[in-house]
């Protein structure tokens, strides 16, 4: 027995080491850079200047805090709406064979589609020169495509939110369908025979049953949309700018001194996501303990 264990540990150690080195090594290197340690340009001293600059300096603070607000707004709204949309879609079509097939097909196609493609699609459909604007103008619902509201590259991130909803609702949908499938209809039938009407069955049976999976999926989606770069880069505006885009621009900056700020910002983004995840676990843990 003991020999087996040693063998297993020995055999998984090399790949494990590589993973740890690559992954945590990268993070460690980033962390060190964010603290101003950049031997390449002759900087060896450790300080928090980059963090201070991002959070409080006249140059970056306003950009950072508006960016953070936009980030939170976009991630919360898109995650919430994608979850709600997927929930209603899943509930509406789960009992119809046709609806199930069609929705499954659309969403399954959607899932592997790169975010970049979705972003381009959003521009194609929702921009002022897009399909929708031209169609509405053609139908005389608006007088010219220019009257179409600014939904893409707008300061409230509507285009970004639309792209995330479109993409992330597929993820929610597939999770929800499998949860609903495994739950079956017995709980609802039971509740119905106990006198629960349609709304009460949704409120007191379906919602609490799917909530745990919906919540976990939301955390994943939220964390992803909070840190993702390509959709806001394509569909966002210069100001306010979402944090991942801001971080990336620091890296593109030919001035190597901006590297530290870029790294500091990336680490701040990672920290915020981590704190949110910890809060989530803390909340669910206390809920379980209360149970």
């Amino acid at each position, binding site marked *: 027995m003991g020999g087996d264990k040693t063998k297993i540990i020995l055999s998984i150690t090399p790949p494990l080491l590589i993973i740890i080195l690559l992954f945590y090594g990268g993070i460690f290197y980033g962390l060190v850079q964010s603290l101003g340690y950049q031997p390449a340009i002759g900087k060896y001293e450790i300080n928090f200047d980059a963090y201070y600059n991002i959070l409080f300096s006249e140059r970056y603070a306003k950009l950072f805090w508006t960016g953070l607000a936009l980030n939170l707004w976009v991630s919360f709204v898109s995650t919430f709406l994608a979850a709600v949309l997927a929930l209603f879609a899943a509930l509406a079509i789960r009992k119809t064979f046709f609806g199930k097939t069609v929705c499954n097909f659309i969403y399954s196609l959607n899932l592997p589609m790169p975010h970049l493609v979705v972003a381009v699609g959003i521009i194609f459909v929702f921009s002022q020169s897009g399909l929708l604007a031209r169609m509405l103008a053609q139908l005389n619902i608006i007088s010219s495509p220019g009257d179409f509201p600014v939904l893409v590259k707008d300061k409230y991130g509507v285009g970004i939110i639309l792209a995330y909803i479109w993409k992330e609702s597929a993820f929610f949908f597939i999770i929800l369908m499998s949860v609903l499938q495994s739950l079956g209809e017995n709980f609802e*039938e039971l509740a*119905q*025979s*106990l006198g*629960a009407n349609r709304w*009460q069955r949704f409120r*007191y049976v379906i919602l609490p049953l799917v909530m745990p999976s919906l919540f976990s999926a939301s955390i994943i989606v939220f964390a992803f949309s909070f840190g993702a770069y390509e959709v806001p880069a394509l569909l966002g505006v210069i100001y306010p700018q979402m944090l991942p885009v801001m971080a990336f621009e620091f890296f593109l900056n030919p001035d190597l001194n901006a590297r530290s700020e870029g790294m500091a910002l990336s680490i701040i983004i990672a920290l915020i996501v981590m704190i949110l995840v910890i809060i989530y676990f803390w909340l669910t843990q206390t809920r379980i303990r209360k*149970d």
Partner: protein
Amino acid sequence: MTEVNIVNLIKNFSGMTRPAVDNISINIQNGELIALLGPSGCGKTTILKMITGLLTPDNGDILLDNQSILSVPTEKRNVVMVFQNYLLFPYMNVNENVGFSLKMKGDDPKVINKRVQEMLELVKLPDIGERRPKQLSGGQQQRVALARALIANPRLLLLDEPLSNLDAHLRDEMRELITSIQKKLGVTCMFVTHDQEEAVLLADKIALIFDGKLQNFAEPKEFYEKPINVSAAKFFGGVNFIELNKNTNYFDSSIGKIISNQKNVDELHSKCIATIRPENIKISRENIYQDNFFKGKIKSVIFSGTHTRYKIVINNLNLECSLQSLGIQNINKEDEVFVNLPKDKIWIMND
């Protein structure tokens, strides 16, 4: 407190060659406990679901106190079904589970609390209100499910396989609890089982169903003494069957003439089948019988405590006989014996 009339109920499912429920009619008196008995797939759950309204019948009617309920939606029928796997809401504690239907009605929380406590006492679980379903044993879960079903005074209580998930010793306890509560509250109740012993022990009357068709609806005793056909007899442990040809006042068979004093002889076809329960057959070394006696040979003797079982062959016909072990005669394998089929115990049926 409800009288139930199920009239010519039919349900078809696509993909099935026969109706899942085929023209079933059952009348249940107020306060009766009825068993729907039959093998797996015979349509028992489908019948319960039609009564709750979760399925719509293709034909027929369901009446509670002489009023059709087919147009009433499930949630307004006040017909409560307890599912086989209890289905306690995992995110609610026992109190919330039991109080569910009153909450749906919008009752005052104080009233709900009081009723919940009463119900938990009724099922003999007064102190577990704060627990989660996960923290309960199977038997406790079953009782909570029962309390949850009974709290709103249902007009009709439906139990789907209430005992099949329980251990043997819990089953006895639960069976007694169900009957005592059912009689105490006087609630009309219908339960589903595939176990004839369970049906006999619990039910006032049994509806025996094969392949969606009602075979017989009668008191348990009748299924033993006067089965409607061979399959019904076999389902209740019948093993002795003798093919007969009807004559004016006797029956011919491969072992000879058989007489019966059955009343409904006129209803029997010219070819019919006699059955007799093993415990009603008599055997003896000497011929001490008046009629329906035959010479046979003992093929095997199996002692099983209180009873001893004999396999007898008479002219190629095999019969089983079961005698009380106490005071038994000395009869052994290969012995020649006289076998008596008492004419008041033999039952003849069409098939």
